[in-house]
């Protein structure tokens, strides 16, 4: 119907050259070429997945979920490395993605390294430096066995978690992202390693933003 209620309240549409309505159009048009352009392009990576669009659509569509679908496809068919924004998935996999299988947390105090998160500010740095003292003062159980906030997640559970990733293809998905990113890294002449600190490609996709946006 192209009423545009989704774009109207879409946070991404306000700050990026992005238009969820238009993306739905392209999908409905079933125009292979246009859809491929989407998978290759930056646009689908602009969505913030707040799903505000779901609430408003008079036709009950959810552009946000369509986009996350496109993202998965873009990665599976290996087009995500074609676009600047798509390539960033590598950085996310490298940080958040690996946190999950390594620690059982998406995010944990120890993951939010001040040098990667300058916007977190001095108080956070203070917390980060005195993590155990501060966490436990608030009743946490910082990186220790047993229950409680920020506890160490034991191997039984971690094993299960990793197994799930293997069985359901999550692991392959990770490796797929890695593999294609390595190929791209070579094309872009940026060296890429398995860890983060000396990983030029990682910092490139994590930090750099070309002028066009």
């Amino acid at each position, binding site marked *: 119907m192209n009423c545009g209620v989704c774009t109207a309240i879409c946070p991404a549409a*306000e*700050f*990026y050259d992005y238009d969820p309505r238009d993306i739905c159009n392209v999908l409905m048009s079933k125009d292979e070429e246009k859809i491929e352009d989407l998978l290759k392009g930056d646009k689908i990576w602009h969505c913030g997945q707040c799903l505000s669009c779901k609430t408003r659509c008079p036709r009950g569509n959810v552009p946000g979920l369509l986009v996350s679908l496109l993202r998965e496809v873009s990665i599976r068919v290996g087009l995500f490395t074609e676009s600047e924004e798509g390539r960033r998935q590598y950085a996310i996999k490298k940080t958040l993605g690996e946190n999950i299988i390594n620690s059982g947390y998406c995010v944990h105090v120890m993951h939010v390294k001040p040098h990667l998160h*300058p*916007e977190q500010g001095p108080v956070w740095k203070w917390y980060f430096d005195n993590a155990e003292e501060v966490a436990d003062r608030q009743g946490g159980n910082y990186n220790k066995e047993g229950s409680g906030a920020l506890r160490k997640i034991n191997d039984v559970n971690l094993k299960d978690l990793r197994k799930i990733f293997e069985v359901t293809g999550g692991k392959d998905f990770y490796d797929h992202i890695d593999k294609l990113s390595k190929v791209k890294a070579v094309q872009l002449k940026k060296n890429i390693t398995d860890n983060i600190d000396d990983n030029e490609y990682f910092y490139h996709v994590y930090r750099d*933003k070309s002028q066009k946006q």
Partner: protein
Amino acid sequence: MKDLGFSISKSRTIDLDKADLSVYQKIIDKVPSAKLCLMCGACTATCSARNHTDFNFRKIHLLFRRGQFDGLADELDKCMLCGKCRLVCNRGVNTRAIVYNMRIILDNLNYKRIK
């Protein structure tokens, strides 16, 4: 000021409370038929410049109407003023005159060009 490695994005939302709509009034005074534009896009469809580039008169006209002038001066440079658009307009809008006057006005407001 600190540099945290990123800058806070600028909004591209059209805010009709802030936009200067009086500029478009000048167009209407010069080309009254501008009011009649339905944004049907016939002009863009026939446009010779459109044939070579993404020049889109319909959209430029609309953005101008909404008081969004950034980058328009450069866009308008693409027009060759051949006037086909005027002949195909089903509401008899003098589109060519609109382009002409938009150019003049933008130059007078010296709207900064990208290059």
